[in-house]
């Protein structure tokens, strides 16, 4: 299914791996006990806060391994300083404990315009609170998260910073989860509050610092140093229990002892070193790293320095980056044999020698340097050989590139400031990001490449233009596309497959751009070019263009062709695994069917879309929200308001993870229409005002539907000033508008005219609408127009015309079971339908409609029906044909007995008919019945 191909570059699993602990670690029972106590009920957060080099990660990892709960681990790095990415990894970490969790959140986060972070968190928290088994989530290196406003990247769609997201998470932390944060600085959280409430467990620098006893044990057991008590005490004092300092000091001492005599630890030399060290005021770390480096063979030194530019190390990568100096033989201290100078040996040596190399996986394939140590190494590298740094990055980039690891390769090319190579790599690997619509990543890279360089590379222009269109920068997008087109002149010479494919992609970008300005003709022209030129195997782009082509076709009033395009698009995208676009296509198709008055077919397509929009666990994907809104519209037509509301509720739940503003508007439009029907104008008002206050414009179709919704609402509540304002803000030239999108808005306009008793203008407008709607077989709005015309005829006293019109309306409405389209017009229509029923016109349909009207009038309807005149007559149920017959004889003055004889009925039967007739006409005697029947034109 779709989930495979939708998956973007996989998460770096080493970030989700608890760093393995070394077997010979110092046991720190006092700290382990404190951490164990942090899991007591009511304690939600553990904060391990201390400067670099105090053993935070080691402590937490060691505790986590034996804490008795499943542990989700996330090692943060500076790239995670982006709410979307942070949450993606957070969900990834939680999934290592509970694989089925958070799929909806993930797919939402991967979409080009992610929804608000708060929504994603809410959904995630709900899922977390349903877990039965408690677990621990560790966020290591949280200090890399910058408070926003610093230089954090601007985020489209993300309303929260990572810090805010974390606060939100903590404030709503579900009971099964315990959070551990390891950091160099206290996070900007309301820690004082957590302390007072007893939620917080803290391990701070005073706790982490080695006690003299621990220092002694560490030097002896772990670092294997025999030192005098005084020397241990001196070291402890000088380093103030700073573990990194002690470890470096121990390494330096080791080196000293080996320089002198490999077999005997030189106690004397050690004392001298400690003396000079404690007597100086050197920055401990700087001094010690220098000491330690100095004592390493040159090969090890260059290895350390040159691989320090890497975030993660493995042997093969180090081989590629590191440049071993000369041919000198490498002999590692403590080894009898000279070793071949390969990176694997060196990595193993470094780990064994406690040289600040942290394994990242149990197989010891990947490592990283201790952050502090890496900083020191980079500092030295930069000072010693600055010219080497770009070269090293370039080598790393080449290594990643060879292995197809695009993101790392591109990152290193950019770090090497080798923009031509970076551009080339983006050109090579960018398509897979383009294909899965990861424009966030593409623009993050392209923003760092000089614009002049992008302009010379048409593929980069194509990638960038999509990212720009998505963020509404149309003019910029257009500029880059123009550059791309210049490389393709003259178009007649586009024959090589690669050039054809490129030309097709430029056309696709143009089609996309045209769709943003409702340029149907432009969409179709460029979509045709796209499909002609783009290579056959480009399924994602073909699928997307098929969807756009549907849009272009409906905008050009080619509805049969639009239908075919959307069908085709659904198929192509399903095959290509783009579930979201496939569902979008089906929903567009369902909408078209609804407007064509094929309600049942529309429902079938909705079902098809709903079946498609499921994740691997059979749960609805966020895009299902589109389907539910479309289905709610059908339920509304059938007057099944409860089912419509259920659909909308489901849509609301899924929508939080589906970032489409258009859908949000559609949902508000639909729900406020429902609220009006339910007699709750106050809620409808809230819904409408929320969108109005957002100051954002939805696209064409949603915008027109919302416009109609507003007119309807303000008219219903009698706010005519606002209605006028809305009408004045729009261009109401019918010929300019596409009626698939705009019919509802024009009908709302006509409704206003009826309310103003401008009957002639209303009728003319409705005639014009109907003519076009019927030509294009958009029968649902055509039916609505007709019903509005019934109202006009009736209000103008043209009873015969009204009767003919309602008969036609009933015939149009009957096959698909339209109800609401009548009921929304209120008592005037009800009375006409009642009469029609009494005349025996389509009794089943009128009966059903009248029942709906009655149910409506039972409720306390606060809404006035703008097209209606006040009802002066009660509702009537249609008379059966037999009852009509009886009534006619009554009117002729026949007695019950005479009627019985004439109709070959028992007298009691005739009396029964009479009772029914009185009942239905709400009268009590024969003369009244006849008078009423004359009034209703039944005789």
């Amino acid at each position, binding site marked *: 299914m779709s989930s495979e191909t939708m998956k973007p570059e996989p998460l770096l699993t080493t970030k989700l791996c608890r760093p393995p602990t070394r077997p010979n670690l110092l046991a720190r029972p006092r700290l382990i006990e404190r951490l164990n106590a942090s899991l007591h009920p009511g304690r939600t957060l553990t904060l391990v806060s201390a*400067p*670099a*080099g105090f053993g935070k990660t080691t402590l937490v990892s060691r505790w986590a391994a034996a804490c008795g709960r499943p542990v989700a681990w996330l090692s943060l790095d500076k790239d995670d300083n982006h709410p979307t990415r942070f949450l993606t990894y957070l969900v990834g970490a939680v999934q290592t404990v509970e694989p089925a969790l958070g799929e909806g959140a993930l797919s939402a986060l991967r979409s080009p315009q992610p929804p608000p972070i708060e929504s994603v968190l809410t959904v995630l928290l709900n899922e977390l609170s349903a877990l039965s088994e408690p677990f621990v989530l560790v966020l290591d290196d949280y*200090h890399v998260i910058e408070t926003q406003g*610093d*230089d954090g990247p601007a985020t489209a769609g993300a309303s929260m910073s990572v810090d805010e997201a974390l606060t939100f998470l903590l404030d709503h932390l579900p009971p099964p989860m315990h959070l551990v944060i390891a950091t*160099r*600085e206290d996070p900007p959280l309301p820690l004082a509050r957590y302390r007072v409430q007893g939620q917080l467990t803290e391990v701070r620098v005073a706790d982490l610092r080695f006690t003299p006893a621990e220092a002694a044990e560490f030097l002896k057991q772990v670092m294997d140093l025999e030192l005098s008590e005084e020397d241990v005490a001196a070291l402890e004092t000088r380093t103030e229990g*700073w573990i*990194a300092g002690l470890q470096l000091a121990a390494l330096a001492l080791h080196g000293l002892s080996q320089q002198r005599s490999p077999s005997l630890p030189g106690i004397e030399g050690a004392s001298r070193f400690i003396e000079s060290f404690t007597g*100086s*005021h*050197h*920055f*401990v*770390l*700087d001094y010690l790293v220098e000491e330690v480096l100095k004592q390493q063979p040159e090969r090890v030194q260059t290895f350390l320095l040159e691989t320090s530019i890497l975030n993660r190390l493995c042997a093969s990568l180090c081989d590629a980056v590191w440049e071993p100096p000369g041919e000198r033989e490498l002999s590692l201290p403590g080894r009898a044999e000279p070793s071949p100078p390969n990176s694997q040996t060196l990595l193993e040596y470094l780990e064994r020698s406690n040289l600040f190399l942290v394994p990242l996986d149990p197989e010891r394939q990947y490592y990283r340097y201790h*952050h*502090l140590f890496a*900083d*020191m190494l980079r*500092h030295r590298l*930069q*000072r010693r050989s600055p010219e080497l740094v770009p070269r090293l990055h370039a080598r790393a980039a080449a290594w990643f590139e060879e292995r197809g690891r695009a993101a790392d390769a591109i990152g290193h090319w950019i770090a090497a400031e080798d923009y031509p190579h970076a551009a080339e790599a983006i050109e090579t690997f960018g398509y897979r990001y383009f294909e899965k619509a990861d424009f966030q990543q593409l623009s993050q890279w392209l923003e760092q490449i000089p614009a002049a360089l992008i302009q010379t590379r048409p593929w980069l222009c194509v990638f960038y233009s999509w990212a720009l269109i998505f963020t509404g920068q149309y003019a910029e997008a257009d500029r880059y596309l123009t550059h791309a087109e210049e490389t393709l002149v003259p178009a007649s010479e586009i024959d090589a497959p690669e050039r054809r494919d490129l030309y097709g992609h430029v056309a696709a970008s143009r089609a996309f751009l045209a769709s943003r300005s409702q340029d149907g003709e432009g969409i179709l022209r460029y979509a045709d070019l796209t499909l002609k030129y783009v290579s056959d195997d480009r399924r994602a782009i073909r699928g997307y263009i098929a969807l756009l082509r549907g849009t272009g076709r409906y905008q050009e009033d080619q509805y049969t062709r639009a239908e075919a395009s959307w069908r085709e698009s659904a198929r192509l995208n399903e095959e290509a695994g783009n579930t979201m676009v496939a569902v979008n296509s089906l929903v567009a198709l369902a909408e078209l069917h609804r407007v064509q008055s094929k309600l049942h077919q529309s429902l079938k397509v909705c079902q098809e879309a709903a079946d498609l929009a499921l994740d691997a666990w059979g749960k609805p994907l966020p895009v299902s929200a589109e389907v539910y809104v479309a289905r709610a519209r059908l339920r509304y037509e059938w007057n099944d308001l409860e089912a419509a509301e259920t659909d909308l509720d489901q849509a609301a739940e899924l929508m939080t993870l589906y970032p489409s503003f258009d859908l949000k508007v559609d949902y508000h439009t639909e729900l406020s229409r429902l609220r009006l029907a339910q007699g709750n104008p106050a809620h409808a008002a809230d819904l409408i005002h929320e969108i109005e206050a957002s100051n954002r414009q939805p696209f064409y179709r949603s915008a027109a539907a919302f416009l109609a919704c507003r007119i309807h609402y303000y008219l219903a509540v009698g706010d005519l000033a606002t209605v006028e304002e809305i009408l004045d803000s729009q261009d109401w030239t019918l010929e300019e508008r596409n009626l698939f999108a705009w019919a509802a808005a024009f009908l709302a306009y006509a409704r206003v005219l009826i309310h103003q008793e401008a009957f002639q203008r209303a009728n003319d407008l409705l005639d014009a609408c109907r003519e076009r709607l019927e030509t294009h077989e958009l029968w649902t709005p055509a039916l609505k127009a007709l019903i509005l015309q019934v109202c006009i005829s009736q209000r103008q006293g043209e009873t015969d015309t009204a009767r003919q019109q309602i008969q036609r309306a009933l015939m149009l409405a009957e096959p698909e079971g339209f109800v609401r389209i009548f009921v929304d017009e209120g008592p005037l229509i009800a009375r006409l339908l009642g009469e029609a029923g009494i005349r025996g016109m389509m009794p089943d349909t009128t009966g059903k409609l009248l029942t709906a009207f009655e149910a409506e009038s039972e409720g306390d309807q606060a809404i006035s029906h703008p097209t209606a005149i006040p009802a002066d007559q009660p509702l009537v149920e249609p008379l059966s044909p037999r009852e009509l017959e009886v009534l006619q004889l009554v009117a002729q003055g026949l007695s019950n007995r005479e009627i019985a004889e004439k109709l070959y009925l028992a007298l009691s039967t005739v009396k029964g008919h009479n009772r029914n007739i009185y009942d239905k006409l709400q009268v009590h005697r024969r003369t009244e019945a006849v008078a009423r029947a004359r009034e209703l034109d039944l005789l």
Partner: protein
Amino acid sequence: MKKKLDSETEEVTVYQIRIKGHLDSGWSDWFGGMTLTREEKGQTLLTGPVVDQAALYGVLKNVRNLGLTLISVYPAESVPTADGDSE
């Protein structure tokens, strides 16, 4: 003193940051090009112009990342960078 914030005389603040331990001048790059002076009692004084608060926090972050102990942070008097009319 009247502060002017037009482009001619954009003012920056000179900060003095005192940390524990003797750092050699090679570290200057890590601290926004500030001047490093060794002081008595094993302290180092970092002195230099800091364009804004964001830059100051950048410097302090490096102090933190290197595991250095921060002793004090003082703004010295404001001085105009461009020549001219400081009253």
